[in-house]
């Protein structure tokens, strides 16, 4: 993995700082339809940004315009950006073995992610599948982070007898 594509070491902390409020906001928007009023914008119906007849359009009807609230977009982007920062920030010593562990964790996470997705495709139908796809935006990175942290833990906690000076 190219080191130049990695964020600085401290970016992971920024990532977790963004992730926590973004995840809470995401849960609030999905569970309780929470929305920030100041994130509601009006678009002309000719806009290519989204379908004017979408079920998510809200607000007072104005001829030729429709309303879109960007709270869930903010939460989704916050989660994606934060998980990227956590996933792809350097380790303290970023060497070739860490690079190989990254590649292994990435491969592992892709395989696990698609196994989970394949199972859920078989068992979920209709609108429930939309939620699965929505969560699937994040699971790849979440599984990658979990796998990478586990590999790093194993790497730094090698048996004492092998850590001869």
């Amino acid at each position, binding site marked *: 993995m190219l080191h130049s594509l990695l964020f600085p070491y401290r970016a992971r902390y920024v990532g977790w700082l963004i992730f926590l409020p973004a995840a809470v906001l995401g849960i609030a928007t999905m569970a309780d339809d929470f929305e920030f009023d100041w994130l509601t914008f009006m678009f002309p119906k000719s806009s290519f940004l989204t379908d004017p007849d979408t079920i998510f359009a809200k607000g007072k009807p104005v001829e030729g315009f429709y309303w879109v609230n960007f709270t869930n977009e903010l939460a989704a982007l916050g989660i994606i950006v934060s998980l990227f920062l956590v996933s792809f920030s350097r380790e303290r010593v970023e060497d*070739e*073995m860490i690079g190989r562990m990254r590649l292994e964790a990435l491969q592992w996470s892709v395989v696990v992610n698609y196994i989970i997705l394949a199972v859920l495709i078989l068992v979920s139908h209709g609108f429930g599948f939309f939620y699965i796809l929505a969560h699937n935006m994040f699971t790849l990175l979440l599984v990658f982070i979990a796998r990478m942290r586990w590999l790093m833990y194993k*790497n*730094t906690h090698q048996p004492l007898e092998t850590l001869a000076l």
Partner: protein
Amino acid sequence: MKNRLKVQRAEHNFSQAELAEKISVSRQTINSIETGRYIPSTVLALKLAQIFGVRVEEVFQLEEED
């Protein structure tokens, strides 16, 4: 692939941490190479040989199954 890294390191009186610092890797990487859990790249193998002032074959050797 087997290696004589631990022996070479002992002969040159380097700790794992000192050797790791010389070639800009972590101590865990040196430990993983010594215990055979990680096969280093050609660049890293050549760097290690250079540190010890020997040919790379004196540090790393192929095995039957390689």
